[in-house]
């Protein structure tokens, strides 16, 4: 059924408008007006999403709107097309809904910071790109959003401009993402070679009749390269290293970009391309294994961190791993389900952590917290909701989605289920640990904690309700059934009990360690020695990357290109040619580097090479 145009372009355009107004004139506006514009435009998008979805009804088929032919050259035709189907609808509601809440929160959180207008301009720009990403009806539109959110993420991580670590973290995020984008671009080009289009519909229609590839073929390559892109954006092994550092940005940014929305773009893209992935089982296995490995590894690192935001950052990496595990075993709807519930509770965790940090005037180290339950009770109450949600306690949000994923994993390979359950136990442990260290026991810091204002805890309360009831209320897999048929197989009750028990065990153990007998963790850390150090230092992955990739690249280009090519090869060659040019040496020595003759020799050598290749060797 064809629907009338819903003017979908308004959805991304409203935040863009906010960006333009605040970016151009915000400096002269009072903070209140800046906040109103920023929040208003995003909330406007949310309302427009709701209105469009109501008008579109059941959304049995994708609704596509074509506005403008962006590029037309030869066999290539790319339009500015926006599309809504059920998958987009879910993502739109999450992005604009949670986006609005976080914007409101940020007006309170950032009220004492300089560059208030700049912050909201960037945040609105981010919303524009993120909405373009999920609304785009072809891969190029998605890519525009993809690069755009990366750029905004870069700007916002480095928002505290004069902090060197912020600048480094921002740069790292951008560059690691570039590696992922390299994969994405290659995938797009491959797609173009094989299907002659970037359009979702055209590509998927051509892929649909193709057979499942038993051995790696073009579809497998496309899928794998797309996954490289997804791994960059969604922080999977080996490209996850930027996300923990990204916590240098202001906390609302961590919540919006690095927990709830942008980092799930990779999951969205894989789910969007499910038609391709389902015909490339080898690529699916890679996705599942990488997802699972990321989940385990990040969870173990999370066990030993002391910075409250770092704990949640590694938790995000780990949860994203879960989502990819779901996609990899074919349960795309479970993956998106987890995207949604995770957006609720992780945004809440970060914003709650922000509230704690705000209360303690910038303190992030949990060793200097403790006993805050009575001092900031509202923050504790809302964080407790997120806590039970992420720990997988039934019937709260995280339980439902995690359960779906684990069951699908068991259906695929039982060992994946068991590893997943172990990870769930660790998840429950590190979150409980963070909660106990922060809110229980005695206060170990020296600030005077104060509760956050209503603009901050109001959004938290909404998120708390969503974290508690969102999983039960929103039956995402059911809603997505037309796109992703539900996996068959019995709903095995035992497996559910086991995973719940694992979560409970995690909480219990954390209680034992950090409330019942606080001396225990230190003695265990001591007795584990090396292993603890390894985990505490995040497996030394950053150091390994620096040693194996960054330094050789930088030093290599210095010594190879600088010394060898400029000085060694050329001068060496010249010394060989020698005496002829030496007679004009006195003249040349007038110049700082004195190597015109070596340059000329280089030109001659090059010419000889080209001559041999083209003139002599090429005779047919």
């Amino acid at each position: 059924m064809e629907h009338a145009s819903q003017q979908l372009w308004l959805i991304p355009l409203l935040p863009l408008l906010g960006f333009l107004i605040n970016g151009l004139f915000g400096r002269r506006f009072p903070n209140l007006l800046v906040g109103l514009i920023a929040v208003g435009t995003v909330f406007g998008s949310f309302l427009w999403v709701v209105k469009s979805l109501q008008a579109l009804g059941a959304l049995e088929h994708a609704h596509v709107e074509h506005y403008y032919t962006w590029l037309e050259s030869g066999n290539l035709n790319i339009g500015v097309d926006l599309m809504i189907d059920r998958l987009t609808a879910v993502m739109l509601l999450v992005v604009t809904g949670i986006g609005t809440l976080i914007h409101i929160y940020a007006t309170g959180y950032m009220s004492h910071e300089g560059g208030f207008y700049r912050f909201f301009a960037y945040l609105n720009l981010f919303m524009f790109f993120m909405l373009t990403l999920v609304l785009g009806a072809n891969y190029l539109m998605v890519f525009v959003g993809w690069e755009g959110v990366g750029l905004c993420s870069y700007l916002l991580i480095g928002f505290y401009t004069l902090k060197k670590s912020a600048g480094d973290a921002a740069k790292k995020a951008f560059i690691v993402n570039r590696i992922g984008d390299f994969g994405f671009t290659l995938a797009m080009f491959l797609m173009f070679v094989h299907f002659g289009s970037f359009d979702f519909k055209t590509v998927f229609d051509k892929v649909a009749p193709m057979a499942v590839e038993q051995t790696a073929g073009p579809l497998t390559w496309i899928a794998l390269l797309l996954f490289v892109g997804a791994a960059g954006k969604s922080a999977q092994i080996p490209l996850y290293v930027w996300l923990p550092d990204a916590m240098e940005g202001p906390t609302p940014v961590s919540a919006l970009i690095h927990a709830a929305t942008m980092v799930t773009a990779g999951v969205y893209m894989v789910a969007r391309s499910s038609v391709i992935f389902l015909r490339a089982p080898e690529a699916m296995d890679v996705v599942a294994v990488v997802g699972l490995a990321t989940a385990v590894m990040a969870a173990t690192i999370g066990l030993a961190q002391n910075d409250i935001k770092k704990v949640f950052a590694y938790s995000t990496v780990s949860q994203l791993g879960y989502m990819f595990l779901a996609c990899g075993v074919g349960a795309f709807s479970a993956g998106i389900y987890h995207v949604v519930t995770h957006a609720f509770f992780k945004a809440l965790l970060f914003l709650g952590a922000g509230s704690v940090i705000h209360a303690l005037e910038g303190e992030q180290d949990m060793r200097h917290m403790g006993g805050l339950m009575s001092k900031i009770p509202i923050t504790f109450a809302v964080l407790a909701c997120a806590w039970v949600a992420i720990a997988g306690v039934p019937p709260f949000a995280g339980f439902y989605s995690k359960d779906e994923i684990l069951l699908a994993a068991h259906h695929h390979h039982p060992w994946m289920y068991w590893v997943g359950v172990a990870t769930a136990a660790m998840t429950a442990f590190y979150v409980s640990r963070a909660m106990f260290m922060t809110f229980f026991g005695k206060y170990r810091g020296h600030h005077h904690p104060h509760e956050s204002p209503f603009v901050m805890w109001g959004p938290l309360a909404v998120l708390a309700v969503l974290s508690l009831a969102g999983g039960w209320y929103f039956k995402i897999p059911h809603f997505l059934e037309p796109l992703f048929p539900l996996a068959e197989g019995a709903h095995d009750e035992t497996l559910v009990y086991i995973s719940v028990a694992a979560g409970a065990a995690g909480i219990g153990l954390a209680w034992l360690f950090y409330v019942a007998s606080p001396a225990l963790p230190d003695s265990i850390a001591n007795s584990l020695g090396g292993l603890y150090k390894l985990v505490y230092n995040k497996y030394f992955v950053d150091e390994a990357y620096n040693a194996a990739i960054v330094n050789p690249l930088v030093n290599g280009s210095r010594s190879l290109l600088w010394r060898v090519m400029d000085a060694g090869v050329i001068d060496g060659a010249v010394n060989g040619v020698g005496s002829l040019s030496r007679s004009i040496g006195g003249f040349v020595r007038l110049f700082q580097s004195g190597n015109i003759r070596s340059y000329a020799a280089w030109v001659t050598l090059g010419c000889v090479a080209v001559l041999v290749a083209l003139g002599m060797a090429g005779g047919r």
Partner: protein
Amino acid sequence: MGDNFVPTAADMTRFLPELILTVIGTLIMVLEPLTREENKSRLGVIALAGLVAAMWGSAVAAADPGTAFNQMLIVDGFGTFFRFLCIGVGILTVLASFAYLNREHANSGEYYALILYSIAGQCVMVTANELIMLFIGLEISSIASYVLAGYLRDDKRNNESALKYFLLGSFATAFLLYGIAWIYGGTGTTNLTEIHRVLTNRDIAPLAGIVGTSAALMFVGFAFKVAAAPFQIWAPDVYQGAPAPVAAFLSAGPKAAAFAIFLRVYLTAFDTIADRWQPIVVVSALATMIVGNFAALQQSNIKRLLAYSSIAHAGYVMCAIAAHSQIGTQAVMFYMVSYAFMNVGAFAAVTHFARQGERYVNTEDLAGLGVRQPATAALLTVFLLSLIGVPLTGGFFGKFYVFKAALDANLVWLTILGLLNSAVAAYYYLRIIVVMYFKEPGDSTANLQPPAMGIQAVLWGSAAATLVLGIFPSWVLDYAGRSANLVK
């Protein structure tokens, strides 16, 4: 035959831009001694008017396409496209130069006249249909550029730059001339269309050695002018030493014209031996990208960094030439436009920032620019993002088309390595952004004046063009596509 040597009205119309540029250039030279020192920048305004008139002249010439002067020139869509581009670069350069020349107390008419002459040479190059004409155009353009590179006679860096450029430049053009001699010896003509006809009709087996050698010798000349490996070696020294607005000019105008003749000669005259030159271009493209990008990683002088970056960009463009197709030609044309705007814009920012005597040309000197002059920093960021190839900028679609063309031609590995290269490139551009925004403002930005009017115009205009090219690429792309069909 005799009466053919009297130019017809149509000949003159098709030669209009060159005529205008030469006349105005000479006029400026005549007015120069009559103008008082403090009024010299008025000569720049005349130059600007001359360039605008030349733009108009190109449009007039394009309305009546065809050959001129006994088929020595050809006014086709391709040539007209590059005429517009080179003249446009000239306008931006003159705008960026006012402040520079005032600052250095070196305002004189010859600077503007030389720019006009250089552009006249480039216009001849891009419409040449004949190798001797092409050579003459190249020399007119180059000799003016050599003088421009050493414009500040008392500046050691300028001297060094000019002399290096001149010595190596003449060395390389000698190869080109030698190549022309060979092809004339082999085919008996220097007309591109004729050469193509001879090589198509005749079994070229006996000529293979001669044609191949000629192609190789001419490759040396062209590769030198576009700064492609292994003949890129002069570029960093010359760009670093030359006055900043001249470096902007050199990196955009002459380079675009050189790419135009490269394409025209290789896709018409040497079209029939494409399977032989293609591998050379592929290897050269690859080497150019690698040398440019990896050497740029090490640079702390921003002019030198931009020089290496411009080498890397030449490498991307070479990928499209290697594709050897109409789409490839179109990609080159689009790329050169977007590249001209982003690169001239970046150099204009450097011109502004370097201040008198170009004292502040290290990347570290930009520390805190984002705080001290947010608008300048933001505009420079736009150019840098475009150089990286971020979507919604011209640089993105430039790269997109180049690599698409290479892929269409089945150059899969070249595409992959090219994309990898462009991923590496993000690093050194980003470093500049990081310094601008995340470094404590130091002494270098303490007494920075706001940018002069001319520089403001270049910065804003180029940034707007960069974004328009990224958001509405089809405006230029369609035009390039219609013009990419070279007459064979």
